């Protein structure tokens, strides 16, 4: 059994909103309802449920079980994946592992959060002792220090970063599910002139916290074929690395776990960066996109800006980037935000991209970023390569 013996047979996504008027369970129900309608898989055939972290629901000690209860699912396998923004990709990998192990046959991977409307998150880590007393704001400050380090070492080109921001915003204009507030065009000058939050992190570098949900349904490829679900998406490569540089006191924050995770995913898929049809990197900050281009070997370390200037990232271009707008221009659904990029990649491979359909739908690369460790880059890096059923 292997990762690629499994398939994503359906996907769903709610509209992303700045503050949801409905409860997290209702957002989750929208996903279940849509996926049942799309695949014809009945609710009593879903025997596995994997949830992502959620700053809302995971505050409940029995998060995945309560979700199963609310949705009326009777399960053989039920769990939450708590690797932050990496959780949605982690959920797909764990769904495949569970199916391969015979623990479940059809697994709903569900990502929901209403972090803005009802945030129960109370992280207990190094923060209260070692960062909070210094007025450290979390992610924007971490990315501020990281960007300053990158600038000292390689030079930071705001115009290159602005080009990424503009491409994603253009895509949000073509995505009805994107947060309405973010569906206004921007220019590179708008990016460069947006106000500083944590130098050199600007307002237009940052995600806007929103509420929303998404999900995918995973089953064995043979089972999918038997049901005539030939239009599906196959995970062909996956890599995951947590706490890169764990045994070092000083870690270069421009080197991330995506290097190792990417090498594993590409090797497993038998593909190279040149083969990738569309790129859906986790984007909590714009610079993270550039760093991932470097770590995944689209270009050498430190030379992301040159690559960005010579590449067309529009949905119609050479390397379509976060064609739904990414989290930065569609809105970040709290800890479920990684599902936004995943579902868009799946949608493109299903050929459902509509006014933003990419030309090359032979493969898509999705990544995840989860958690911020002490003074480094991020805790977990994930890389998932998808292809259509072929």
């Amino acid at each position, binding site marked *: 059994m292997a990762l690629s013996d499994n398939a994503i047979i359906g996907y769903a996504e709610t509209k992303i909103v700045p503050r949801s008027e409905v409860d997290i369970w209702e957002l989750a129900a929208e996903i279940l309802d849509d996926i049942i309608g799309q695949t014809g898989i009945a609710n009593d055939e879903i025997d596995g449920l994997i949830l992502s972290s959620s700053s809302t629901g995971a505050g409940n000690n029995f998060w995945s079980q309560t979700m199963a209860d609310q949705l009326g699912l009777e399960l053989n396998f039920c769990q939450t994946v708590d690797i932050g923004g990496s959780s949605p990709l982690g959920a797909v990998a764990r769904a495949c592992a569970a199916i391969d192990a015979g623990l479940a046959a059809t697994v709903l991977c569900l990502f929901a959060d209403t972090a803005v409307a009802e945030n129960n998150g109370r992280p207990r880590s*190094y923060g*209260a*002792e*070692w*960062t*909070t*007393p*210094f*007025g*450290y*704001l979390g992610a*924007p*400050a971490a990315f*501020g*220090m*990281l*960007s*300053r*380090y990158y600038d*000292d070492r390689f030079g930071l080109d705001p115009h290159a970063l602005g080009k990424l921001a503009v491409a994603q915003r253009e895509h949000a204009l073509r995505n009805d599910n994107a947060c309405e507030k973010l569906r206004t065009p921007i220019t590179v000058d708008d990016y460069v002139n947006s*106000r*500083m*939050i*944590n*130098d*050199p*992190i600007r307002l237009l570098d940052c995600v806007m916290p929103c509420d929303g949900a998404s999900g995918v349904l995973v089953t064995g490829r043979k089972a999918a074929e038997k049901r005539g679900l030939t239009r599906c998406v196959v995970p062909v490569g996956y890599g995951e690395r947590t706490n890169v540089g*764990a*045994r*070092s*006191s*000083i870690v270069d*924050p421009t080197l991330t776990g995506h290097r190792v995770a990417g090498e594993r995913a590409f090797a497993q898929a038998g593909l190279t960066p040149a083969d990738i049809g569309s790129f859906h990197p986790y984007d909590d900050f714009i610079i993270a996109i550039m760093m991932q281009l470097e770590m995944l070997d689209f270009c050498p370390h430190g030379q992301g800006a040159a690559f960005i200037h010579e590449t067309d990232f529009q949905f119609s271009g050479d390397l379509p980037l976060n064609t739904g707008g990414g989290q930065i221009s569609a809105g970040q659904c709290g800890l479920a935000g990684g599902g936004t990029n995943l579902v868009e990649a799946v949608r493109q491979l299903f050929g459902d991209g509509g006014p933003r359909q990419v030309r090359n739908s032979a493969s898509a690369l999705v990544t995840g970023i989860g958690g911020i460790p*002490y*003074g480094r880059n991020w805790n977990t890096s994930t890389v998932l390569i998808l292809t259509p059923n072929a």
Partner: protein
Amino acid sequence: MTRLNDLLDIERPLPPARSFSAPFWDATREKRLVIQYDRIADAFQFYPRPTSIFTGRRDTLEWREVSGRGKLFSYTIVRRARPPFRDHEPYVVAMVTLDEGVNVMSNLIGCAEEDLAADLPLKPYWHPLPDGRHLLLFEPDR
């Protein structure tokens, strides 16, 4: 010259001490900096942890007093903060590389924006907390 805020007048959230980090906080009462050292790896670690990041073992660790001198690794100028830091922007959150080879997050004081550059030499500045402990800040070592 753009003066950055030293944040010496605000009431900061008091850091809790975990079961394993108490020696660090106790030493700050005497304005002494002690950090964890691993005898097998011959290397220091920060922040204080319940085990050695080098060996995974507990009895290879000891606390050693260090000078607190170091240099600037990276920094960000905070221009938007939450209370109690709000309205005290701009200020600096920095990573400081101590001479012993660990990175420590803190604030820089007595700095203008123009002073800030990678490798700026720094020394400790002990800021009193209301409970008798001190918070380790850094100032330029001019």
